[in-house]
């Protein structure tokens, strides 16, 4: 499965890019599983995902919990708690 993964704010800084398109192993079915796999890709990814409590996720532009199933998602984003307004 091909998936667009987006990163924002310090998650983007740690990973060194804001977007990547990845071919996921079929065994990855949840947001949490995706984070486990992403953390193995590079030291930057590992640093970004070292404290999951600081990471929020969105699947196809909707806020989700880490346990959410990917279910054919096209776009997943990871970012710190938001600070707009």
């Amino acid at each position, binding site marked *: 499965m091909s998936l667009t993964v987006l990163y924002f704010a310090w998650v983007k800084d740690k990973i060194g890019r804001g977007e990547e398109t990845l071919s996921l192993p079929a065994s990855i079915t949840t947001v949490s599983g995706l984070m486990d796999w992403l953390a193995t890709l590079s030291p930057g990814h590992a640093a970004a995902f070292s404290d999951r409590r600081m990471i929020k996720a*969105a699947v196809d*532009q909707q*806020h989700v919990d880490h346990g959410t199933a990917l279910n054919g998602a096209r776009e997943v*984003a990871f*970012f*710190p708690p938001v*600070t*707009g*307004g």
Partner: protein
Amino acid sequence: MIRVQREPFDPGAELNAFMATVPKSGGIASFVGQVRDFKGDDTVHAMTLEHYPGMAEREFAALTEDARGRWALDGLLIIHRYGELRPPEPIVLVAAAAAHRADAFAACEFLMDWLKTKAPFWKKEALDSGEAWVAASADDDARADRWKK
């Protein structure tokens, strides 16, 4: 109306234009958030707002729909900037128009509280001590939780 934009805006002019669209409303409540020029003992020279294009607009649309389900509203306005800002430029303008002030006040406060915890924007401040991402505040979470049904 919802606008997510890089360009500066004039809150007074925007509020006047919004009010002209709701002649049946007796009360309009508004809130402006602007870039502060200090943080603790440090000086804020500039602020960069990063955002998630597409999701930002979707979240604002969902928030305004939610507000319309809770109160009797004639109109809602959200303008939010991204990009480079300097103190004391406006970051956000929220306005709510209703027949009576109670609905307008409540909707305006609700939109700001939920926007603070749901809208995908991230602030980075340029200080004397360097650049730093702003941390989310527990107080913002507590304020948003008050509106959970």
